[in-house]
């Protein structure tokens, strides 16, 4: 199975990189971009064939390594 994982900063955590991207978009003439939050996207190919077990494993990986839960949240999709 494939796990698609999005790691993003928690709401309220300042994102200076996202803010710099927002400024750059404005400078290029893209008006109305009110906020940019930058994150990470990871794709994992898993040997697991059970959907529930795959999701549980991917979530454990996020908790243990892929996300820093002090400042980040994550979302797991299994396909």
């Amino acid at each position: 199975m494939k796990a698609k994982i999005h790691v993003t900063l928690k709401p309220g955590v300042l994102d200076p990189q996202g803010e710099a991207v927002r400024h750059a978009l404005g400078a290029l003439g893209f008006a109305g971009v009110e906020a940019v939050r930058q994150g990470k996207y990871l794709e994992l190919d898993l040997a697991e064939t059970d959907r529930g077990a795959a999701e549980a494993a991917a979530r454990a990986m996020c908790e243990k390594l892929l996300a820093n839960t002090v400042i980040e949240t994550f979302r797991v999709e299994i396909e």
Partner: protein
Amino acid sequence: MKAAVIVFPGSNCDRDLAVAFRDAFGAAPAMVWHKETALPEGLDVIGVPGGFSFGDYLRCGAIAARSPIMDAVSAFARKGGPVLGICNGFQVLIEAGLLPGALMRNAGLAFVCRDVALKVETASSPFTAEYREGETVTFPVAHHDGNFVADSETLARLEGEGRVAFRYQGSNPNGSMNAIAGILSENRRVLGLMPHPERAADPALGGADGARLFRSLAGAAVS
């Protein structure tokens, strides 16, 4: 006095730290590769050096913090052994859960490499005993991700328990909350800081304010 320096792929301040340890302790430290699972017997102090362990992949310090040797480093710290993490070493100790909070990209987004003035906020730790509380010292910083962030509860605890060891004075180079440059663990035996005392440990390096941090450790081991 017996010291160890943990070495990861991408560490680049390990030998500078070894020289500072050697000068203060009178013996060269053991250089311990990250794939080891046990530390040398009878250690008095562990240093986690600066650099770019594992190329800063995923998050700075994240991969190094899960290295085989880190279980032994954590066990040493839990028993009250002093552990010093400098720059990337600070990031590693935070990722390993030995210190609270997180170190994010510098607020100005630029890599900052210059001398900074620091206020010594506490002399009551094995790392700062040789300093006067409130005095100003100068160490260099060289980092891209030194912006200390913690939730308000953690921040209040750090301040309330006198666990902010060093604070930036004057301009804040990275946007750290409360201008925090270095923090202590709850038992005050783990210190993580972004500035580099080992790069200011000899007058020939342009400053020797950092030497007292290593002398403090030497004194703590004797007492």
